[in-house]
């Protein structure tokens, strides 16, 4: 009995930890501009792949491993992040992004279905390390503009750009 209780407690604790690790998410239901409606399946796929891209970005910048970007980033977004990782590595630095909340709004779905643009009011913890010493830790709040394009099995981030908040 007590063993069962303990297993339940561990399972509950793990799930609570995992739940705590997930960023808060809010998605505006409005349809984006463009000639075709955004299907619910596409919408949820894009959100899932976009949040996954944040995890990949965080891991790649923290470990200075550009190959971790391959699954979720293409084009200029991938080039920029890879270049940043190379600069960090050469300077003995790394940075850590931990996303806490996303407020997503779809703004444009191209008529051919080959690109989706969204904005994300993101809240995240940003830490910068030099020679493994913490230099700064800052809570950030930025409006990201994101363009995703479809790949063989998932949506990939092609543009990820923070802009001044309106």
């Amino acid at each position: 009995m007590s063993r069962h209780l303990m297993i339940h407690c561990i399972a509950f604790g793990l799930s609570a930890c995992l739940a705590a690790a997930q960023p808060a998410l809010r998605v505006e239901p409005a349809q984006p501009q463009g000639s075709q409606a955004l299907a619910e399946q596409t919408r949820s796929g894009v959100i899932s792949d976009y949040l996954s891209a944040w995890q990949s970005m965080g891991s790649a910048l923290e470990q200075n491993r550009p190959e971790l970007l391959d699954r979720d980033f293409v084009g200029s977004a991938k080039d920029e992040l890879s270049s940043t990782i190379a600069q960090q590595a050469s300077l003995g630095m790394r940075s850590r992004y931990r996303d806490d909340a996303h407020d997503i709004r779809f703004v444009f779905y191209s008529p051919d279905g080959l690109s989706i643009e969204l904005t994300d009011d993101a809240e995240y913890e940003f830490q910068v390390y030099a020679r493994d010493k913490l230099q700064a830790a800052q809570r950030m709040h930025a409006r990201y503009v994101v363009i995703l394009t479809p790949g063989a099995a998932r949506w990939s981030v092609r543009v990820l750009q923070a802009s001044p908040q309106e």
Partner: protein
Amino acid sequence: MRRGFLFLMTGFALTIANLALAQEQSITVPKSIEAGSAFSVQCAGSGEGTLYIVGPGQVLRRQVQRGATATFPAGSLTHAGRYLAILSPSQSPPDAGSNPVSSFDVVPAAQPAKMSFLARPSRLPVDIHNAITGAVYLFDAYQNLILTPLPVSFELTNPSGAVQKRSVVTRDGAAWTAMDSSAHEGTDRFIATTGEVSSTRAVVQVTGDACNLRMNVAPADGKLLVQTDPVRDCSGNAVPDGTIVTFTEAIHDEKTTVDVPLKRGIAKVEMPAVRDATLTVASGVSLGNQVRWEK
């Protein structure tokens, strides 16, 4: 009472000292910098330090003299985004809470230098409403998406010189339009322009399906010579040679079907001449006339 006052005064003095230290160690960065432009960072205090500028798009490190202004030439920061400027002392071990930090934005340049123009489809039948779509994203010289609204002109010109025009203002860096395919086959030029930047795509328009398909039947040496009129689409364009036309002859419960490619705009075939036979003609989804042979 006296001890309490002393304690209060000490706390007040420490707070003032901390504030003065923070003031002394502060850095001042412009809140916003245009991508690629020169900028400077004021580093207060004295002694040497390391200035880090870190964002997802770029990382810079510079040894600085506190009390001086660190200048960065044009082209130093080119990727738009939110950055942190961090001033770290050279000597004492860094403490995340004590390093002066300031966040700032690098914004895209105002002038577009590149355009991503997606035009679809590249080939389609003539005379379809809003069938051609064009979408553009505007970028500056550093591949940053320009988010300020900019006018984009779309022009679709057919070989005869007729032009469809639309003017659209970008929202969040994107603009799109839809246009009709023209009535005549040929290759149209689809041009998107903003400022000095333009991009052209070719859109091939081909004839549609056969329209008003019609055949004639005449006896010839004991058989029936079945022949279509010149086959055209609904806009009057000749359907290309090689397009399959299907002739069917039904005699009571039996059917004979012959597929014939168009040659010089018409299709013709010989079929058995049988009394009360019914002949029909079709091409793709178009059904033509029906003839009953009663002789």
